[in-house]
């Protein structure tokens, strides 16, 4: 679960804006990119979004005022940027390209065969990525990023019951998917 330790390495007020940004990028860069990837499912795009996130952070550092932890603040910016991207015309078209390219590349093995080759965790993660965004994001934030329901609710501007419902539905959908590909387990 989320703990207070996230703020330890970046004490506000003691660093210049540039230094602070560097610290934030070092501390959260990978995390931002990983979270972005779970939304857009493309490496290059996740990288682009991550850069945008930190540019945005830099411009808003003055307004941050230490109200929340840097971690949740950066998460929120990332989530918003990702959603803007998902809504954009560009994303829809570029995805198409990537989907086709990966489709051509992965032609040699059937999906079933690939899944058997992989460890279960990877198979589950793949299926989580295939969930609709509204379920996917709560699953990722709760299970993978280990945020609390309250934190997720605040980040997504939803109430906690909605988050719980989505987690429940997400798990159900995941279970169906896993059964569909022949992996049974408690999810």
């Amino acid at each position, binding site marked *: 679960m989320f703990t207070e330790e996230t703020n330890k390495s970046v004490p506000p007020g003691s660093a210049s804006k*540039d230094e602070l*940004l*560097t610290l934030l*990028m070092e501390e959260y*860069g*990978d995390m*931002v*990119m*990983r979270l972005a*990837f779970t939304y857009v*499912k493309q*490496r290059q795009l*996740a*990288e*682009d979004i*991550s*850069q*945008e996130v*930190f*540019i945005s952070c*830099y*411009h808003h550092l003055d307004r941050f005022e230490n109200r929340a932890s840097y971690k949740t603040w950066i998460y929120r910016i990332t989530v918003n940027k990702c959603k803007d991207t998902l809504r954009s*015309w*560009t994303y*829809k*078209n*570029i995805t*198409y*390209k990537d*989907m*086709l*390219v990966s*489709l*051509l590349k*992965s*032609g*040699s093995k*059937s*999906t079933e065969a690939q899944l058997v080759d*992989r*460890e*279960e*965790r*990877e198979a*589950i*993660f793949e299926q*989580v990525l295939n969930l*609709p*965004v509204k379920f996917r994001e709560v*699953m990722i934030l709760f*299970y*993978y990023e280990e945020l609390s329901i309250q934190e997720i609710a605040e980040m997504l501007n939803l109430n906690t019951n909605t988050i719980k419902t989505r987690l429940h539905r997400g798990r159900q959908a995941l279970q169906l998917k896993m059964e569909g590909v022949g992996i049974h*387990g408690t*999810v």
Partner: protein
Amino acid sequence: MEQFKYPNQHPDLSELHFDEKNKNQVFEAIQTGESPVQKKKPKQKLALTGLAAAAIFLLFIGSAYFSPTMAKVAAKIPYFSLFIQQEEYKYALQDVVFEAIRDKKYNDLRNIEVSIPKREITIWFGGTKTEVKEIEESVIPLVNTAVKENNFGTYKIEVIRDKTAYNKVPEDSPEVEKYIKDSAELEKSIIAQLEKHHYDMPFPVQARINDIEKYIYVAIPKTETRIAELEDLLRTVAKPYGDDFKLDIRKIDMAAREQETRWEEAGIIHILVGGLMENEEFKVTGFSYSFHPLPLQIKVKTSVKSTHSSAKELAEKIEQEIETFIETDELTKNVRNDPYELIILGKDKKQMN
């Protein structure tokens, strides 16, 4: 919850690192005020490669071009989702073509048509033979460059002379102008009165005044009981324009209307029609639908006889694609729980499913 951990060996995740290069780009962007993404990809909006176009081409041209593996993988992508994306790609290409010729001197552009599977762009112009010939010589290189610059690859571009001569539309006579003006005014007054008396209007009110008829159409919920009052109200409002109005008052099932609105907003019917017609494999020759009365009824007519050996399989295929689309696509999330009845008909008008 061990299984809900990021996998170590994931091909993409393991490569994701916010490295020095990323950090430098962020600082550079902050200093220059220029987004690294925009800088890197000035035309990302249309940055599709020829490969993508070729792949779409392959996917849509039919089974002859598929390797068995390709076909198997392609079969896993819901058809309608792919169709929607192809449409978006097509519109994007159409935009590029239109933008390329818009500001030039060609003033009688009649139509632009783009076929992704055939890799063809067809542009129609009006004018004399010589004029169109001249246009052709300049417009083809122009469009060709624009299409390539935007990474759509190579297309066969054809310019066709549209021989239809359009006569200048004659101006409306003062009499017709008055009809139009009166109709619009009456419509406005009716709406104002209906709103004042709290009538729901599930469909837009229509008023027509011309030398053939005087007609008013009003739709109300079927639960509305104030019918006589409504008739009186309409006659009173229409009085300044005459007494002999035909009143067409329709009672609407609001549940059906709400469903219709949900489907309309997401453009589902439009996608179904377009997608079914686009792919020759479906052998679809006709499409009709009705939201009233409930449940929504969708009829798809095919060119196969219901007694033909392939009829059952074809019907199943169509049914399955439509079901998958309604159940899984992001666009259909608001209509997923709406009941609908799908009837697939053969050439002999007999049901196949």
